[in-house]
């Protein structure tokens, strides 16, 4: 059961609204006692999370608080990261990702957008057709449909439809970031992860991407790591605050801003006094 935005906002109590929308939703990502180390340094310790299906889950916190490491662990990028050691259990859709037989298929179900946009040195078309091709789509007509759909949904189609053959790495920063989102969507993911996507993007593009995300929440679970506290407030249903490798607090986003929070450190960060 997914309620629309309008319904959600109609309810005055954010907590009740969340329960109304997500209590019946299955748990998409479940993180149990997750600890991540690089060699001797512990970057994340004892994190517990559960993210519901179709929820936008925000993560805020200063640099070096272990946010990016969590994302890496989620799609098993620790495999390719020398020295990274992950302990604890992560289940996606009830499936323990440490025991997944084919991590590549797992990653295909998770779309990732990086802080800095990465346009692959391929044409715009091939950038978006990359993941479907990996998935075995060969038919050109089918690829055309996928590419157009993904570019439209990433609000990029109108800008690039006449130059699908130019290099993706030569687009402007904001366009490349939307290209990256289109690429993530082309994987047809269940989960979309955005890691501080607005760092290298101008405010107008940021707002356009935020609108895109509001649309996408109907179809997928979104994990939004952001450096902008207000962005979390605009988008996220629930938000977690990370500090120095610890998950300090998880709460209904509105509650974090409007009600007394459990931990003083959260309050300090939100009000700009630390981090």
């Amino acid at each position, binding site marked *: 059961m997914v309620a629309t935005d309008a319904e959600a906002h109609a309810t005055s109590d954010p907590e009740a609204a969340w329960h109304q929308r997500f209590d019946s939703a299955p748990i998409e990502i479940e993180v149990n006692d997750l600890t991540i180390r690089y060699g001797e340094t512990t970057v994340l310790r004892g994190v517990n999370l559960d993210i519901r299906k179709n929820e936008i889950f925000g993560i805020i916190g200063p640099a070096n608080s272990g946010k990016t490491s969590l994302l890496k662990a989620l799609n098993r990028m620790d495999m390719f990261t020398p020295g990274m050691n992950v302990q604890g259990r992560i289940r996606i859709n009830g499936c323990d990702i440490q025991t997944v037989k084919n991590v590549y*298929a797992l990653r295909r179900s998770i779309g990732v957008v990086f802080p800095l946009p990465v346009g692959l040195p391929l044409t715009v078309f091939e950038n978006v057709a990359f993941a479907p091709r*990996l998935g075995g789509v060969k038919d050109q007509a089918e690829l055309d449909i996928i590419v157009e759909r993904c570019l439209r949904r990433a609000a990029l189609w109108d800008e690039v439809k006449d130059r699908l053959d130019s290099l993706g790495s030569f687009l402007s920063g904001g366009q490349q970031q939307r290209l990256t989102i289109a690429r993530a969507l082309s994987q047809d993911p269940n989960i979309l992860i955005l890691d501080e996507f607005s760092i290298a993007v101008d405010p107008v593009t940021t707002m356009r991407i935020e609108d895109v995300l509001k649309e996408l929440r109907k179809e997928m679970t979104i994990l939004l790591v952001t450096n902008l506290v207000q962005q979390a407030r605009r988008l996220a249903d629930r938000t977690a605050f990370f500090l120095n490798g610890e998950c300090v607090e998880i709460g209904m986003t509105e509650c974090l801003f409007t009600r007394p929070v459990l931990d003083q450190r959260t309050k300090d960060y939100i009000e700009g006094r630390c981090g």
Partner: protein
Amino acid sequence: MNPVEFAPRSFQRNRDWYIDHVVQGVVFIAGISAIVFIVGIFIFITKEGMGFVLEHVTFRDVFGSMYWEPSDEDAPDYGILALVAGTASVSGLAMIVAIPFSLGAAIFIAEFSSGATRESLKVLIELLAAIPSVVWGFIGLSILNPLIMRLFDVPVGLNVLNAGLILGLMAAPIMTSIAEDALKAVPDRYREAAEAMGATKWQVTFRVVLPAAKNGLLGAVLLGVGRGFGETMAVLMATGHSVNMPDSVFDSVRALTATIAAELGETARGSDHYGALFAIGIFLFMITFVINLSADLIVRGVKNS
């Protein structure tokens, strides 16, 4: 517009997964091939040469004698002292020529030139390093030989001086480019810090850059020594190739490498002479191995610090 449906999602292994693992296995085998070849080189030259070393000679026969007469049918001599002296004298002279010049050139390229000059000098040095050793040997034989005879009024121009100069010119470009890399590896902030305190370019070079790059420069010198030591065709053609303990730079000598090159074709497989040449090979292999190993360790030390 109809949304395109993907195949139902499963995390089972598929063709791509297996291909990836096969490729990983194949490139791994290729990756360790370098180790296999190095070990193979040691095993195969030892296999051919060890019999001779174990059965026929003592340490003193080889390293205590300067007579190399392996083809004497009654009493062959396998003393390599003269050959070692030949190699050492030629390499030594080559280093005396090459070290100051290549370090000077490296300093000029890295610290005192810029832009197009720098680029073209680097290209030129790279091209010089590419000249084949047999061409160098030919140059020693046909250009340097008459030149030395005329300039110094000596009967033979194929001697330590000739080979040393040739080898020096050969080793210098390589040493220059490695030394230049070492100098460039010194972070610019060192230079900037010194220049901000009012030091001039040469003060910066001598007080800051050279001390900071000294390991890399030492590595460059060692690699040059290794190169000189192992050079074959040029020393074969330019030394005069006569077994001799050199007294002066105008004496002809014979080098370890050149001996193998000159005599391997004339020996029967399995004979003592044949085994002796492979034994020299083992000796050369081990010496260059040690030289390269220490050069590598020294240069690596720079990178780590």
